[in-house]
C-alpha cells in the first residue's frame, strides 16, 4: 500500500492522540494527584502502618501464587504439548477458564466452597481454620486469577523449539532430569520469565476476586489495591489523597513490570 504523506501523518496523529488520552493522561493524573499537596503529605500516606502492611501483604500474595503457578505452568505446558490423549486435550481447553470467568464469580465460587455455609466450610471451621475473610482465601483467589499466564507463554515456545536437541542429549546418555535442566529449561526460559512477569502483575493488581473474600481489615486482609479502593470509597479529600498515594505505589511497581515486559518481549522466540 502506498500511502500519501498527508494520510500517513493523519493516521499517526489519530493513533497517538488516542493513546495519549487513554493511556498517558491517567498515569500523569495519578502522580499529579498524589503530590498535589506536597511530597511530605504523600509520603505520610504511603508510610501509615496500614499502607506498609498492605504493601507487604500484596507482595506475599504474589510470592505464594506466582511460584506455584510457575511450577504448574511448566509441567502443564509439557503435558499439553508433549502428551497426546483425551485428558491432555481437556486440560488444554480448560486452562483458559480463569481468563473467561469474572473475578467476582471467582470470589463467589471460593465462598461457596470454603465459606461457613460452603461445601467444606464446616470441616474447616471445626478444625479452627478460617479461609474466607482471611489471607488463605485471598491466596486461593490470587492463584486462580493468575493461573493461565505461564502455561500460555511456555506452551507455544515448547512447540517452536521442538525436541531434537533433547533426543540428541538422550542419545549421548543424559538422564531425563539432566536433559530437562540442561536443554529444555534453558530453551524455554524467556517464555517462563515472561509468564512470571505477567502473573506477578496480575497477582499484585488483583482486586475483584480478593475483594469478595477479604474482610478489609488493615494489617491482616488489606492488600494495596484494596487499600486504594477503601481510601477512595471514604468521603473527604484527604482520604482521596491517601488513595492516590497508594495508587502511586502500584503505578511505580507496574512501570517496573512494564520495563521488564519490554526488555523480555524481544527475547521471546515468538511475539503473540
Amino acid at each position, binding site marked *: 500500500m502506498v500511502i500519501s504523506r498527508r494520510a500517513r501523518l493523519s*493516521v499517526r496523529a489519530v493513533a497517538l492522540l488516542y493513546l495519549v488520552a487513554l493511556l498517558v493522561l491517567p498515569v500523569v493524573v495519578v502522580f499529579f494527584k498524589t503530590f498535589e499537596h506536597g511530597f511530605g503529605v504523600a509520603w505520610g500516606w504511603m508510610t501509615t502502618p496500614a499502607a506498609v502492611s498492605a504493601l507487604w501483604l500484596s507482595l506475599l500474595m504474589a510470592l505464594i501464587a506466582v511460584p506455584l503457578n510457575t511450577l504448574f505452568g511448566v509441567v502443564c505446558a509439557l503435558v499439553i504439548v508433549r502428551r497426546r490423549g483425551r485428558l491432555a486435550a481437556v486440560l488444554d481447553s480448560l486452562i483458559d477458564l480463569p481468563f473467561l470467568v469474572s473475578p467476582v*464469580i471467582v470470589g*463467589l465460587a471460593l465462598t461457596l466452597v470454603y465459606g461457613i455455609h460452603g461445601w467444606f466450610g464446616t470441616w474447616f471451621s471445626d478444625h479452627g481454620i478460617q479461609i474466607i475473610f482471611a489471607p488463605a482465601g485471598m491466596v486461593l483467589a490470587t492463584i486462580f486469577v493468575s493461573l493461565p499466564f505461564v502455561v500460555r507463554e511456555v506452551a507455544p515456545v515448547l512447540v517452536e523449539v521442538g525436541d531434537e536437541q533433547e533426543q540428541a542429549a538422550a542419545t549421548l546418555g543424559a538422564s*531425563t532430569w539432566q536433559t530437562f535442566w540442561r536443554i529444555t529449561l534453558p530453551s524455554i526460559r524467556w517464555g517462563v520469565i515472561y509468564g512470571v512477569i505477567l502473573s506477578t502483575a496480575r497477582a499484585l493488581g488483583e482486586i475483584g476476586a480478593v475483594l*469478595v473474600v477479604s474482610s478489609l481489615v488493615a494489617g491482616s486482609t488489606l492488600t494495596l489495591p484494596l487499600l486504594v479502593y477503601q481510601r477512595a470509597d471514604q468521603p473527604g479529600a484527604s482520604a482521596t489523597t491517601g488513595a492516590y498515594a497508594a*495508587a502511586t505505589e502500584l503505578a511505580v511497581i507496574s512501570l517496573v513490570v512494564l520495563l521488564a515486559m519490554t526488555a523480555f518481549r524481544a527475547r521471546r522466540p515468538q511475539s503473540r
Partner: protein
Amino acid sequence: MPRARQTPRSAVRPGGLALGLSTLYLSVIVLLPLAAVAVKAVTQSPSSFWQSVTNPTSIRALVITLVVSLLTAVIGAVTGTLVAWVLVRDRFPGQRFINALIDLPFALPTVVAGLTLLALYGPDSPFGVHLAFTRAIVLVALLFITLPFVVRSVQPVLLELDREVEEAAASLGASNGVIFRRIVLPALRPAILSGAALAFARAVGEIGSLVLIVGKTQIASIVIFADIESDAPQAAASLSLVLIVLSLLVLVLIRRVGGRVGH
C-alpha cells in the same frame, strides 16, 4: 494449540504423574469452585432461579454488560488495528516508547485505572467532563483495560504480511481503499477477531476498574458483588451462571463469524 508430533520416549515427555498432578491442581484451584457456583445455581427451585435471573435489575444488568462489552470489542477492534498499523508501517521518533506503552493496561492494577478515570471525568474533572456513574465512563474504562488485546494480536500478523502483493495490486491500478479491503483486511481478520474476542471476554467480567466509578449504573459483575454482600449467594450464583453461558455463546458466535467471513 498446535501439537507436536508424537514425542519420542527419548525426549522429555511427562509421565502419568505429571498429567495427574496438573489435573489435580487445576481441579482444586479452578474446577471445584466453579462447580460449586453451578451447583448452587441449579439446586434451587426453578422458579427462584428464574426469579433471580429475570428480575428487572438482573435483566438490565445483563443487557448493559453485554452491549457495553460488545461495543468495547468493536471500538477496540478498529482502534487496535489502527494503532497496530501505525506501530508497524509508520516510522517516527519515540515509536519504541509508544510500543512499550501498549502493555500498560496489563501492568497497571485495574483499580488504579478506575481511580484515575474518576479524577479525569468525575465530579472534580479538570476538563469539566462529568461522566462518573454513567455508561460512558464504563466504556472508557473497558477500552483502557482491553487496549492491548487487539494491538498485540494484529501487530505480528501485520509485520509478516507480504507487501509485494499490495505493491502488485497498486501497480495494477487498485486504490488504497480497495487494497485495504481486499488484501490487508482479509489477512488481518482472524487476528482482529481473536483479539476482539479476548477483549469482549475480559470486558464482560471486569470489576476492578469499575468498582469505584459505576455507582448506580448496574452492570452484571457489580450486581453479583452486591448479591454476595447482601448474603444472597443463590441469586449471585444464578446470575453468574447465566453471565458465563451468555458470554461463552457470544464468544462462539464471534468465532463463527470469523470463520465464515474469512473464507
